């Protein structure tokens, strides 16, 4: 369609105004100038269309052609994505490096996926089978841990006319032909290249999908089981479900990225999509280096074997930053459709919102709060709503979990991005500056954070963990809440004058804060703690609490209690008991009983 083009009329940063052609469609992808920079149509008027460009516009001149491509901005979905690192519009950064060296040049055209690589394909369907959207017809082993299932695209339904035998094929090869039946096109929103009636359609291992359109599912389900992350404060106190959505807001230096890294490393999702949206280049390098070396605690494979990285660092073009979030979620939905549990880390959604603001400003739109466009809330909600626990078109159980970091301006949670995000997420992990200053990590503030999934997942906890899990969790939180109230008094008069019962609460809260809530990401085994150990630790702490209460009620003073080192020993459990020898934990219960016996005899 190279003959259909308009010409540039005006240029303002990444925004172009184009005249001379009125055949553009909204959200259509366009190629600009002889270099073929990639852009997207974002506004159409009779005379002029508005286009945002995903690359640097320096040197562009009025009169340069803007070619229509007919298709929407899309991602190529197929094997070869895992372990790779892409920019915001799914160009592999390694190929860009080969093409243009250390610095990223403009107008680089590289295939999103390696089209020449041979994949060893195993077919699962045969000639004459009914083909329906989402049906798995073949599979390839994409990495050591992930099998990529080849599916019928969501807009095709019919009969398999032919299918290739097992063997090795590239992404260019057609692996099956489907005779499309009439009803298919009506079932879903027709896509630009949707097939017409009774057409023969070739199926390849790769399919294109427009990034701004959610991929269809059979139905949404309730989020009924947690995403296990190995982080105590998350798993035990503020859990997130598989298919849930969470926000991590925090000022700079409070550990947003660190928390995201920890979740990406240790959570029990099958696939991680990590979007570095407008963040630091070195951080992406760190993820790349670390994840290649680290092993998944469950599969013992390299973490990179289940991770896809999307890096649009803060100095890369702003329009591509806006697109990167959608690119990431489209990829996540593709793997979800195969029946995987996928988790997306978006770091940071504020940069994405700021990209919206910047583009909106260039378009001279009327700003709402703090210069953000009025459609900020609806864009945020349509992103977060793409998360969910679902039954896929092929009937599998799968989910997409979204965990978005938010970087509030001036660490002020009342700003528009945090507030609007809070409306759409169900887990809120508020990072606190004063905890971070004291190097208490993860700096998730237990008083302001919440999780709305507990009720939905109650059954799962009862069946898989034990009936008293939720009660224990509540007791732990209660001690922490009581501490915060007592601290108001302590700030005024000091802790020495409090009665022993209150001093005990303070002491127990200290044990919980240091021994349980705080977790060392750099420690060999404290970085990931299995759920069983978390539970046991919680039980030990509560057992210690009960024992001390009995002693205090007998009139034994706090000073006597503190003369023993039992508190310090419970705090040190996290470092002294490995994740594999949970038997050692039983010893602590009997130690606490001994401690009680000793004091009881001596003092009562």
């Amino acid at each position, binding site marked *: 369609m190279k003959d259909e083009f308009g010409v540039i009329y005006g240029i303002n940063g990444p925004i172009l105004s184009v005249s001379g052609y009125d055949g553009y469609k909204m959200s259509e992808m366009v190629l600009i100038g002889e270099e073929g920079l990639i852009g997207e149509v974002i506004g159409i008027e009779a005379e002029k269309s508005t286009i945002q460009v995903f690359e640097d516009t320096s040197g562009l001149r009025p009169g340069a052609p803007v070619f229509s491509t007919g298709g929407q901005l899309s991602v190529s979905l197929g094997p070869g994505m895992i372990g790779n690192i892409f920019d915001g519009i799914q160009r592999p950064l390694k190929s860009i490096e080969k093409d243009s060296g250390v610095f990223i040049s403009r107008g680089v055209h590289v295939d999103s996926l390696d089209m020449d690589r041979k994949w060893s394909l195993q077919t699962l369907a045969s000639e004459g089978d009914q083909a329906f959207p989402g049906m798995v017809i073949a599979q390839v082993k994409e990495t050591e841990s992930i099998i990529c299932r080849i599916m019928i695209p969501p807009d095709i339904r019919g009969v398999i006319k032919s299918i290739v035998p097992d063997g090795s094929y590239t992404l260019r090869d057609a692996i099956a032909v489907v005779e499309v039946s009439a009803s298919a096109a009506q079932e879903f929103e027709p896509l630009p290249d949707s097939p017409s009636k009774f057409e023969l359609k070739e199926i390849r291992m790769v399919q294109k999908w427009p990034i701004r359109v959610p991929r269809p599912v059979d139905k949404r389900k309730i989020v009924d089981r947690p995403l296990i992350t190995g982080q105590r404060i998350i798993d035990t106190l503020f859990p997130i479900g598989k298919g849930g959505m969470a926000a991590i807001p925090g000022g*700079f230096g409070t550990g947003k990225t660190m928390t995201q890294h920890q979740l990406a490393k240790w959570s029990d999702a099958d696939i991680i999509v990590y979007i570095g949206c407008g963040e630091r280049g070195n951080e992406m390098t760190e993820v*790349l280096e670390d994840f290649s070396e680290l092993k998944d605690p469950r599969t013992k494979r390299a973490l990179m074997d289940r991770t896809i990285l999307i890096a649009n660092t803060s100095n890369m073009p702003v329009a591509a930053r806006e697109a990167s979030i959608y690119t990431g979620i489209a990829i996540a939905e593709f793997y979800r459709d195969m029946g995987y549990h996928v988790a997306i880390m978006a770091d940071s959604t504020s940069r994405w919102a700021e990209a919206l603001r910047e583009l909106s*400003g260039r378009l001279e739109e009327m700003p709402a709060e703090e210069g953000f466009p009025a459609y900020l809330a609806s864009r945020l909600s349509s992103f977060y709503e793409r998360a969910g626990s679902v039954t896929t078109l092929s009937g599998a159980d799968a989910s997409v979990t979204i965990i978005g970091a938010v970087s509030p301006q001036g660490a002020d949670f009342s700003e528009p991005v945090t507030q609007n995000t809070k409306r759409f997420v169900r887990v809120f992990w508020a990072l606190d500056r004063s905890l971070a200053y004291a190097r208490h990590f993860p700096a998730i503030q237990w008083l302001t954070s919440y999780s709305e999934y507990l009720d939905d997942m109650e059954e799962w906890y009862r069946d898989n963990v034990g009936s008293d899990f939720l009660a224990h969790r509540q007791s732990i939180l209660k001690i922490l809440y009581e501490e915060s109230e007592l601290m108001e008094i302590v700030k005024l008069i000091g802790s020495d004058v409090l009665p022993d019962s209150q001093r005990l609460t303070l002491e127990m809260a200290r044990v919980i804060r240091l021994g349980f809530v705080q977790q060392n990401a750099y420690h060999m085994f404290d970085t990931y703690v299995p759920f069983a150990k978390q539970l046991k630790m919680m039980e030990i702490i509560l057992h210690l609490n009960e024992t001390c209460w009995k002693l205090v009620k007998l009139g034994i003073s706090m000073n006597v209690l503190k003369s023993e080192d039992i508190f*310090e020993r419970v705090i040190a459990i996290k470092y002294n008991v490995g994740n594999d020898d949970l038997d050692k934990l039983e010893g602590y219960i009997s130690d606490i009983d001994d401690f009680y016996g000793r004091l009881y005899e001596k003092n009562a």
Partner: protein
Amino acid sequence: MLEGVENPAYDEVVEIKIDGGKSKKGRVVQIFGDKVAIQVFEGTDELSLHNTITKFTGRPMEIKLSEEILGRVFDGIGRPIDGMGEIYAECRRDINGKAINPVSRIYPRNFIQTGISAIDGLATLIRGQKLPIFSGNGLPHDQLAAQLVRQASLGGGATEGFAVVFAAMGVKYDVADFFRRTFEESGAIERVAMFLNLANDPVVERLATPRAALTAAEYLAYEKGMHILVILTDMTSYAEALREISSSRGEIPSRKGYPGYLYSELASLFERAGIVRNGKGSVTQIPILTMPNDDITHPVPDLTGYITEGQIVLERSVNQKGVYPPINILPSLSRLMKDGIGKGYTREDHPDLANQIFSSYAHVSDIRALASVIGEDELSDIDKRYIQFGSLLETHFINQNKYENRGISQTIQLGWDILGVLPRSELDRIATDTLDKYYHPMTMSDF
């Protein structure tokens, strides 16, 4: 605003001749049909609707580069102003630079010893890092930056392959002169390239100054294999220049009148630090910014903190106690520190020690608040020890002479000495075997 322009290119440089004599440079910032908006670098004085001739060069803003730039002084857009003539250019580079491909970066891990305990011990500088100094007017940030330059590498004799690129944006003449004298005194002037846009120089030029400086730094680092320390001062003036230009173009402001793209603009500067694969050198940045009204939530420090890899925060109340450098260690942070210290880099006990100092010092401020209510005499014994620990840390650890260069093991030892004031049971961030090896009780009178 020009009309009737044939075929202009976005971002190209234009030359403007006034009355056939003086010439100024400008840059195309917006195109609409045959109309063009131009930003004039040296101010629009003397320009009128009739007396100017404008020539489009067809090229983006470039500077001339060669190794000769070391030891020279340039204006804000890279023209020599030291009277030593033009640079014999080996190449010309677009000052806007290009983004480094994240896969081509090497994650920075090499510790740079600065000889300043508060930095080496608690917010370690790493080669290839961008670590800004958040300061306020009247605080000794210039002295600190000068000391960093003096001790970071210029000391010790190993000057080979090390150079400084200094960019001044809207700073006072005295400040620029202070840096020049410091470089001269330490004999480093031969290895410094200075880009000066002083407070009374044109505002538009200020936007180009850090870009010119960073282009020079990238050239020296990645092509000539040198380790470059870039000092950018004062980033607040840069942001203000951006705001001034933005509002004169009638753009929609976001917070405090700054344009919505302030984050992207700052990022396009700060992200130019780093180490790349198959290049021998590195670019380390120390931007200095003054927080208006000492407010760390002001957009400039706020956005900077989100981009840079940590920050060193200077605080007025610490300065008033006579502590130099007046670093408030709690909000100060080096994000790359975790991978550049400890076993194999500095000393195995360094990470635990730093963590403990932060945690204990955070507790000190709670106790000080309590003491101000009930009086210091009423504090419990342990709280009194915390007060002692706090003041010792300030007077003996953070505080040091402007010419004092402490080795890393000296800094770590000092940290243990001061922690010794606290009873061992209070040190809950340190592994037991590390405590066995290094902890020793101390009292006030030992200092």
